């Protein structure tokens, strides 16, 4: 019988942060809930085999589930990002710029979006991102470059965001 002590406590304390990551990946609260539940259920079976802190393992499960199984489950759906806005503490761009960038983010392929979220929200290094997604560092570099290029080419983004158009 695998030792799953600490699983419930981990879920209770870390699920708000994990849910935020899942939301950034899916851009939909209901899908984020489903993604997180699915990833946590997968981790429950592997809990006794996790070596070291469990959070990186769980984040990897969220990212890989999103990039693979998720692709099939939600094929054809495009996140719109139409969520109730909350006031944010600070911001350098306008609300319109943010919305445009958020919508542009939703057009990225899922693996590229996962790379963007892990690199720029989770602040993982390229090597850590590669480990989390189970790919090489070179793949992470190319996926990130393609993602940023796509965003820069987006017609609805202002010049101040892209800078390169």
């Amino acid at each position, binding site marked *: 019988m695998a030792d799953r002590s600490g699983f419930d406590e981990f879920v209770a304390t870390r699920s708000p942060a994990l849910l935020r990551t899942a939301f950034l990946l899916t851009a939909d609260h209901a899908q984020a809930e489903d993604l997180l539940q699915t990833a946590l259920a997968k981790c429950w*079976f592997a809990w006794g085999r996790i070596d070291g802190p469990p959070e990186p393992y769980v984040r990897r499960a969220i990212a890989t589930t999103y990039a693979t199984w998720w692709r099939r489950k939600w094929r054809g759906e495009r996140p719109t990002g139409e*969520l109730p806005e909350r006031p944010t503490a600070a911001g350098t*761009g306008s609300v319109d710029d943010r919305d445009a960038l*958020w919508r542009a983010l939703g057009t990225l392929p899922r693996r590229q979006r996962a790379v963007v979220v892990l690199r720029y929200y989770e602040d993982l290094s390229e090597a850590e991102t590669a480990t989390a997604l189970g790919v090489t560092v070179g793949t992470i570099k190319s996926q990130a470059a393609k993602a940023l290029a796509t965003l820069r080419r987006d017609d609805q983004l202002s010049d101040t965001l892209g800078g390169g158009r």
Partner: protein
Amino acid sequence: VIENELRELLTARAGAVVDDNPARVRDVHARVTGVRRRRTAGVALVLVLLALTGALFTRLPGRPETLPAGVPAGPYFGDDGTDRSLPGYRGSAYFSFTDDATWSYAVQIPGLTQVVVARCEHPSDITFRRLLGQDRRLSCRVPVGDHYEGAVRLAPVQVENPPPATDVRVEPGAPGDWRVGVLEPLFPDRLTADDLAGRPLTGYSGPGRIPAVVPSDLRSGVLSIIVDCVRGIRLEILVDGRPATTVACTDANVIGYGAVNAVIPAADVQRLGLRPLQRIQVSARQLAGPAHQWAVSVV
């Protein structure tokens, strides 16, 4: 620039996430239960498919579960290990063993097609070393009651003076109780002129008559006629040119090697208007079966 914008955007959007599910732990365990249930069902389905595939595989050509052509239908043995008699066949040389053994096999009648039958506890093959001069394999895989059976047909052996018995090495492919035996067909495959030589009336001699005498005591005596024939022959027996009875050379009627007995009961004798000790002429007319393959004798 865009990297910084992305960082700020993602942080801001992450902050917009509504409160976490307070029942998260319970919901995750419910999801785990569902996954376990599906896995169990999946494993059960896989096992069922494997069992079905295995059953199908064992029935593929090369692993026959049916008897080969040219052998009589079984079963050849009972569940209690007894030897069953088959219409039209005579069993002999039965032998029981559980491992490699030597079987004393006797060629009863040269030129006769024989059938070796086997009973086994588990489905398997058995090899007979130098049976009638060559190695032969018998598939014992036809399920019969609590055991399995198989048979193999042996081509006729043409030998002038068959040995009284031949030692045959038997090598079963699976452990357990084994029993083998030989079925000799009581009907010959064919009769030659030599076989029928000396008989009063034969299929070779064409229309003819046999002089006979009606028994003196019709209460106990009847007119008895022996017909040597191959399987499938049907004859109409005539007394003084009038139909008296018919003889069918079938497995159900054979009484010995190639011999079928027909009787004309007392009632028919009286119907024909025959008297005790009356001299009569018996003749035969072939109704069915291969030509020239019969002979008639009046007892």
